[in-house]
């Protein structure tokens, strides 16, 4: 039994896979529009996954299978470790929202007996990842994260702890979303991202190709605490400490991708980032922000309007994938936060030997 309390470990990304209606390149997927595409029009499960056996999987389950296979093609190799040492992290907020709605409609019209038996197990959101876990024999453990907006980065933070504590040797993270029916919650997102992960030290020792290294941190800033000066000052200190944990002082990030809303929590995050050049998300291709600009944004300061609140976790996950794929340049920071108080940070560093050696020393210390 491990008795040490691990800090946030440096994660090595060994493979990246992206599936989106706007293409499977993170560069194009990250700036995709928000209009929902009927799943069958852009994703054919028979050509993407195989001629048989995938018909009854919800679209989101099909997307993560395709993304995980792409991550394997990208040299991610969870099978290098024993099946019971492979963990699985699923992040989704609305991946099954459409299915839930259709189940509700069926029950209302026909009763529970009208629900397709093959679809019925998916009333539980964590079942969404079962097929992927089975296909890749991810038998160590499985966790599902459903926090609005921060779920994928929250999963990375938990994964880092799981790897550092020896709970597993490798992880597959799958983040997936499907559009929310009727445009609820801003309409949602569509597609999937998969990352294969190992401890940086172990990946290097194994001689595997590392795409990038990550350091993550998730925290909670109680929104009510921001009502008073004392609470705001405390939040400032906590956020500054989190940034210090994630960012090496000698290497300020070359790019900061922020995924925020118009809440006081996000404002506190922006304040903590003061002095760091910020790259806001690209506006959706299908038009200006559909719900209008947020009331509390300050375009004079940011230079661009912040997007409306979104519930999906795909935006931050795609930003991480894009940063991993960047390969060149300095560190990138992805920051996401919601008005509910959830804040998640991840630093993405292009892989370089010196970084890993420094991290080894830091982890050994």
């Amino acid at each position, binding site marked *: 039994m491990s008795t040490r309390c691990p800090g946030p470990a440096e994660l090595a990304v060994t493979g990246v896979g992206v599936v989106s209606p706007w293409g499977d390149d993170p560069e194009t997927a990250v700036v995709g529009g928000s209009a929902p595409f009927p799943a069958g029009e852009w994703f054919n499960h028979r050509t993407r996954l195989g001629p*048989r*056996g995938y018909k*009854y999987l919800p679209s989101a389950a099909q997307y993560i299978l395709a993304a995980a296979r792409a991550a394997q093609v990208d040299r991610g190799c969870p099978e290098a470790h024993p099946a019971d040492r492979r963990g699985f992290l699923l992040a989704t907020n609305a991946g099954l929202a459409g299915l839930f709605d259709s189940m509700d409609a069926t029950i209302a019209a026909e009763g529970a*007996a*009208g629900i*397709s*038996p*093959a679809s019925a*197990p998916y009333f539980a959101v964590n079942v969404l990842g079962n097929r992927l876990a089975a296909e890749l024999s991810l038998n160590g453990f499985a966790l599902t994260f459903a926090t609005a907006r921060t779920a994928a980065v929250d999963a990375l933070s938990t994964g880092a702890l799981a790897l550092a504590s020896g709970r597993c040797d490798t992880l597959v993270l799958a983040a997936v979303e499907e559009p929310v029916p009727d445009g609820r919650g801003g309409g949602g997102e569509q597609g999937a991202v998969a990352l294969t992960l190992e401890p940086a030290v172990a990946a290097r020792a194994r001689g595997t190709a590392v795409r990038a290294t990550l350091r993550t941190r998730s925290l909670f800033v109680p929104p009510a605490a921001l009502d008073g000066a004392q609470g705001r000052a405390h939040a400032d200190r906590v956020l500054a400490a989190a940034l210090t944990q994630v960012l090496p002082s000698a290497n300020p990030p070359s790019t900061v991708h922020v995924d925020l809303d118009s809440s006081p929590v996000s404002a506190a995050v922006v304040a903590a980032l003061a002095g760091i050049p910020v790259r806001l998300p690209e506006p959706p291709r299908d038009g200006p922000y559909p719900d209008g600009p947020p009331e509390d944004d300050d375009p004079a300061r940011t230079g661009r309007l912040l997007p409306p609140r979104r519930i999906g976790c795909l935006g931050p996950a795609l930003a991480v994938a894009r940063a991993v794929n960047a390969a060149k340049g300095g560190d990138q920071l992805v920051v996401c936060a919601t008005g509910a108080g959830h804040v998640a940070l991840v630093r993405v560093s292009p892989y370089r030997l010196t970084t890993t050696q420094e991290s080894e020393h830091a982890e050994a210390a």
Partner: protein
Amino acid sequence: MADTTTSGLDKEQLRDLVADVLDLDVAEVTDDAHFVDDLDVDSLMALEITVRLEKEYGVRLAETELASITSLQSTYELLGHKLRETR
């Protein structure tokens, strides 16, 4: 000519339905192919077949009758019997 029972049940339509439910080529669903042994049907897919049969043919299948759904031929005979009963 379509193979039908006196109930008017069309075996080829039934074959198409079973192939669709099981995500198989129609040619694989031969009269005697065993759903479990030959077509890898598990308990969930067996239930899926049952629900689709009930919806398509407007019959109610008792739990004791589900054991008869082992091949296209046996399903055809069971459905034919049920349809004649309801007329």
